């Protein structure tokens, strides 16, 4: 489990786009670096990210080693009814982590 910060407005207007920001605490080791002994440091990144709202997809992203450490993502979502925003990401070890945030539509 890694630490994740999510910024979502608590209340949003129906059908109006709102911004979601997310910061994942992860080294995103690119696999291009070498340690002090000259050994290659193995790649360890979050390679895939999916965001859904009440089971409808918002977006999915493939991340490559060129994404900076502690990846930050920001995107827009629209909601017609109150529900849950679910964000899932997978790292190079196959570990799946899911974070949720609830949104109230008024």
């Amino acid at each position, binding site marked *: 489990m890694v630490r994740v910060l999510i910024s979502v407005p608590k209340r949003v207007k129906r059908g109006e786009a709102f911004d979601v920001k997310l910061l994942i605490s992860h080294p995103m080791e690119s696999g291009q670096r070498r340690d002090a002994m000259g050994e290659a440091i193995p790649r360890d990144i979050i390679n895939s990210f999916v965001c859904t709202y009440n089971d409808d997809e918002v977006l*999915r992203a493939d*991340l*490559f*080693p*060129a*994404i900076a450490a502690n990846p930050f993502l920001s*995107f827009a*979502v*629209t909601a017609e009814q109150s529900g849950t925003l679910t964000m899932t990401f997978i790292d190079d070890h196959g570990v799946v982590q899911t974070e949720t945030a609830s949104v109230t539509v008024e």
Partner: protein
Amino acid sequence: MMRRRFLVLTGSGLIVPLAPMHPARATPVQVAALIAELVGDATLRDERVKLDLPVMVENGNSVGMTVSVDAALGDVRSIDVFAEGNPLPHVLRVRFGPRAGAPRIATRIRLATSQTVTAVAKLADGSCWRDRVDLLVTLAACID
């Protein structure tokens, strides 16, 4: 004069072998091939996509980037970003679903050197659009 010319020639000869000591890097040709594969038979035009990156980058380890497309949301099939001076040129691929609020994504990327970054958007009608930014990187992302 002969001796001076000899010194000049040997002097320049010493400098040449030092030149190819750059770290592994993608090339514009590789990126062009990746984009050609993505675009297929469609033509690639320079409009509708906005790639927002600083022109002067102080620290290549973390560069804020926003890509947006001037199109209806349902029309945007994918956004891809390529950095031709990075060891691995592909940076990001995004596909939008029905609940997305706008065809836009912001993140932070690594840049290994001063280079051209290209964003390509593919629309549902098959048309492809791009934007490019030439930027200068003062401190490169660490690759060694």
